[in-house]
């Protein structure tokens, strides 16, 4: 593959994959420590009916209405989960289970019942995304990166995912201290005057924005894997939260890079003539990294509690 081909066909999906992985892994660290890791899973599932409804209203697969639809569905889901948890007095995990399966099936039903055959919107897209198709046709080589005319033809998912990753990173940096304290010890955080409920809600919203943006570009498989695998693997590499954050970003990046390359070329190397789903392969790589960290990470043993 020469430079022109790489810049046009591989660079955009690789970058989108990396940004999506990082945007999900960063809030994933806190969600994992709060035992809320599945909230990313839930959000990516509940987003589906919102996206379908947005499509049915606008009649086109365009970015912003779908993002709004997904965000609306996510908000409805958060409210429903909270409502069921309070009214039913049940554990939050159970409430999430009820809400996200219901909303996901509602989304699938809507999808099957409505006429979406004319566009690229189906269950497979929802799961695997369309990473490989996010190519940059205007690119003629590395010089295109400095060419405004060519840059205008970038797949819109790329700048969007980059902005979301940047926002998630900045917000996490800004709220690092309150997030850490309220995650470790909610009672103390409240007593120290921190707005614990608002912080928790902000974390969930941040995760929702990352999940919805990533979901549209790369599908829910990556979202689910990236919320959990890189942070869980990172936890086993260190006993410090700031270091864990660094490890998780590194693991997310390596998963996205290696997953994309292996999906494209791995089967060729093995003698097959097809490539496989990049999103699926990225998720597999993150799982592999988690398995290696679980086996060899220096901080993997749970300390015997006293």
């Amino acid at each position, binding site marked *: 593959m020469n430079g022109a081909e790489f810049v046009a066909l591989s660079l955009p999906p690789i970058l989108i994959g990396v940004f999506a992985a990082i945007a999900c892994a960063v809030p994933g660290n806190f969600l994992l420590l709060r035992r809320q890791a599945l909230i990313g899973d839930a959000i990516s599932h509940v987003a589906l009916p919102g996206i379908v409804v947005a499509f049915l209203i606008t009649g086109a697969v365009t970015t912003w209405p779908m993002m709004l639809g997904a965000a609306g569905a996510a908000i409805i889901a958060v409210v429903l989960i909270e409502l069921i948890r309070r009214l039913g007095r049940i554990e939050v995990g159970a409430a999430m289970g009820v809400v996200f399966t219901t909303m996901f099936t509602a989304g699938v039903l809507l999808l099957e019942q409505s006429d979406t055959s004319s566009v690229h919107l189906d269950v497979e897209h929802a799961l695997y995304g369309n990473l490989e198709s996010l190519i940059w046709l205007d690119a003629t080589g590395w010089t295109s990166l400095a060419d405004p005319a060519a840059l205008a033809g970038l797949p819109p998912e790329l700048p969007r995912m980059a902005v979301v990753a940047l926002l998630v990173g900045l917000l996490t940096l800004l709220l690092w201290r309150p997030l850490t304290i309220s995650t470790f010890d909610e*009672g103390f955080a409240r*007593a120290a005057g*921190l707005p614990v409920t608002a912080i928790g809600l902000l974390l969930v919203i941040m995760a929702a924005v990352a999940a919805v943006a990533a979901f549209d570009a790369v599908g829910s498989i990556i979202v689910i894997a990236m919320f959990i695998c890189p942070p869980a693997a990172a936890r086993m590499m260190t006993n410090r939260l700031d270091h864990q954050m660094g490890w998780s970003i590194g693991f997310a990046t390596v998963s996205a890079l290696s997953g994309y390359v292996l999906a494209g070329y791995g089967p060729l190397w093995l003698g097959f003539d097809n490539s496989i789903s990049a999103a699926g392969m990225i998720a597999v790589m993150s799982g592999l990294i988690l398995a290696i960290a679980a086996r060899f990470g220096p*901080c993997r043993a749970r*300390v015997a509690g006293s």
Partner: protein
Amino acid sequence: MSIELATDDGQAVLPGDLSQSPLAIRGLTVSYGDKPAVFSVDATFQPGAMTAIVGPNGAGKSTILKSVLGIVRPLSGQILIHGKPAARQIHLVAYVPQRASVDWDFPARVIDVVLMGLSRELGLLRRVRRTHLDRAMACLARVGMERFADRQIGQLSGGQQQRVFLARALAQDAQIYLLDEPFAGVDAATEAAIIDVLKSLRDEGRTVIAVHHDLSTVSAYFDHVFLINTTRIAEGTVAQAFTSENLHAAYGGRLPAMPAAGQAG
């Protein structure tokens, strides 16, 4: 602060004088579900004193602390800190939660936890400087834990974890210290170290209020006691309120072995 009104029996803050009490509670009712955990409780804690909140399991002891801190929302009642609503005075309070209330597997070192006590000062973005570290280390030294600053918190014994929690509260440099069962599951050396620190806090004129389980140590450790079993049973100096009569009222038939009731003074 009205420390001159301190602890001697004759000078106690009267129930009517809310503004003189560091922490006064009126008509507090809290309910989890259908059953009230705390029902119409009045309490007037004394400045510069060490008060034990004593009562059977499920009597609402921790609920009182959590209501003061805004962790649980009362159905009704008034909580005043130095005569003003607690929510606006919460910066005067340091809190030591039950050790079992957090996940000690959390990726943090001892020093990280103690620095949490400085969070109000550090705000969102201020960097931790040498002076902050020195203060955190001084708090660790006060509980005999300075050698463990870089240790992961999960690698500590129960007693050591409790000391770290106390060091974090010391870093808050508060007027009122609320502790939820600070001696639960700690070794004897830790218990002695903690009580030394609490007594020194009191001697500095601060108010110490602890939920306490072990009836046999109440008179040795505390000067005031607040007895509760959903409703208030008694409050006052240990000599006045910690009587077998009141204990029977609080514990009913479930009174554990009680060697020293009423013997304090």
